[in-house]
């Protein structure tokens, strides 16, 4: 019996499954990281990265007498070659992150300016959202992270409170993402029928081109009895609008009553997977690509709607030109809408 079992288990080749016994050495951990990325990462072709060449370059820098810190730095540099904000190596002493996707761009946002100069600190807050009326009878919601769950009851209260406004501004600048289910919960208030909002696919095998056919993502409107919003909406975005927030902007951009204002978002259109190395470091990488409603990737970001590009000049401390543009677009004072 035991012989039969051994034969059966031995017959199940594990070559394609990544189960391995890499030693907990600098070389073993490097090989584990390279192989995990090789089989799980989804944007090699899109980013035109020769991963084998990357192995040759960085593998030559690995030695068995290097410290953990030295190994971490080399591994982090290797991961930076992917130019992906969703790729992180996490150890007990550091977390690597590719930062150029936002650090090379103007910030275009100051929450303090809005709190002070637009609301005089008189605003409401609930469920991770700051909201209130701007003087031009425009509703304003600032949502800082999609990691904060959006309560249905909270949304009812917010939209009921703002119901008399002529238009709504949803500000997701500096929103680094979070849960995609929160995107659906929020968007469901702005649609009145099942709506195709994008596509998602996943890897079907370890090859760089092994992907499933993109699957339609259809959002359904919030059920009857819930507060919905059908009036014009401006979504404010900047380069630090990333991941689930990037997805929110991509979804909202294709709704008929919505315009996107500000700057191109930061992207992050690959839903990340987690894995780990023998030394205990964890690694996260883009694994399941998401597309917008037109079937286009937004990995490099979502551009503002035509005529809605704006930025905040350096040194500006008492106004928000992006917010001002949105107000003028909603109140008809701008010809750009």
């Amino acid at each position, binding site marked *: 019996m035991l012989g039969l079992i051994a034969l059966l288990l031995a017959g199940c080749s594990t070559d394609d499954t*990544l189960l391995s016994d890499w030693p907990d050495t600098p070389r073993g951990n490097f090989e584990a990281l390279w192989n995990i990325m090789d089989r799980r990462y989804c944007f090699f072709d899109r980013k035109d990265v020769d991963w084998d060449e990357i192995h040759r370059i960085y593998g030559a820098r690995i030695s068995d007498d290097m410290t953990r810190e030295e190994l971490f730095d080399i591994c982090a540099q290797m991961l930076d070659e992917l130019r992906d904000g969703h790729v992180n190596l996490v150890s007990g002493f550091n977390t690597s992150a590719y930062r150029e996707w936002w650090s090379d761009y103007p910030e275009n946002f100051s929450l303090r300016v809005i709190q002070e100069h637009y609301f005089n600190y008189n605003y409401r807050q609930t469920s991770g959202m700051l909201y209130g009326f701007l003087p031009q009878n425009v509703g304003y919601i600032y949502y800082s992270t999609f990691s904060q769950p959006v309560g249905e009851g909270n949304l009812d209260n917010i939209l009921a409170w703002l119901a008399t406004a002529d238009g709504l501004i949803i500000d997701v600048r500096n929103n680094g993402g979070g849960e995609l289910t929160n995107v659906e919960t929020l968007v469901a208030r702005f649609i009145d029928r099942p709506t195709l909002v994008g596509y*998602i696919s996943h*890897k079907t*095998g370890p090859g760089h081109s092994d992907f499933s056919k993109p699957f339609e993502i259809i959002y359904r409107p919030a059920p009857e009895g819930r507060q919905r919003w059908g009036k014009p909406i401006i979504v404010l975005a900047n380069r630090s609008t990333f991941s689930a927030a990037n997805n929110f902007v991509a979804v909202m951009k294709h709704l008929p009553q919505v315009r996107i204002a500000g700057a191109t978002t930061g992207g992050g259109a690959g839903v990340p997977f987690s894995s780990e190395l*023998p030394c205990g470091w964890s690694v996260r990488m883009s*694994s399941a690509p998401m597309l917008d409603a037109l079937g286009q990737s937004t990995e490099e970001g979502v551009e503002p709607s035509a005529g809605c590009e704006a930025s905040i000049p350096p040194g500006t401390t008492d106004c928000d030109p992006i917010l001002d543009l949105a107000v003028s677009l909603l109140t008809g004072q701008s010809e750009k809408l």
Partner: protein
Amino acid sequence: MRSASFLSFPRLFGVILLLLLAGYATLFAQEKAARPVISSYTLGVGSAHVADTYLTPLRYHGTAWRFDYRRLQAGPFAPERITSKADVSLSLEKTHNPAGNATMWDAMIGIDWGLMRRWRPLPSLALAVGGEIAVSGGAFYNTRNGNNPVSAKASATVGLTGLAVFDFRIGRLPARLIYQPSIPVAGAFFSPEYGQLYYEIYLGERKNLAHCAWWGNYFALDHLLALDLRFGARSLRLGYQGKIYSTHVNHILTRSFTHLFVIGFTTEWLAVNPRKHSSLRLINAF
């Protein structure tokens, strides 16, 4: 292209299922007999060795706990030759990665029912072999993962099961040695695709989630070796219980090996209505 061996398993699946159903259909067509039930309740604790490449490429090791209820009885038909069995198991495993800084939990429930043909080659030895149907479900949960923290497991199978019972004495104390293995042969089981998110399943992407199970992609063995120290109608049960669970589909490998020391008790009981049965013909499970 499907291989010849693959084709034989659905056929085998059908044959075993038909035999079980045919047996059950004759349940009430047979003469009633008093069939005592042997029930055992055991708790097990031991080691667990787990791998699930949907969650991590590393092997995890730790502790396993398990509760089992097992029931044996002479069959509902041909009770002189047939033994029926039913098992319910609940298991929990807590394992850690090699570095010891990540935890994976594995919780499973399993239910199976089967019929066995039995023989008594010696007065003190009973042997039985038969088929069973089984369902199981549960999940592996890796606490450090973000969007892929869970690997759900579910299966429905038909398989082979057996029983060997040897009665003897330790001094003046009656004792019984029992070996009870079960091996699924064919069926269906759940697995997402290689990099599929459960979020996609939530969205409605549910193609290719069910897979035909055969020994090339699904192998499991659950076996118990126990010593019953008999005190009248009750016994103290001590033993070893091992389980092997291995699946390999969509480039995802799952393996779980557990080795448990079990302790529990066994009772033998019979429900009788004396107003309906003035005389009884007792037929034991083995």
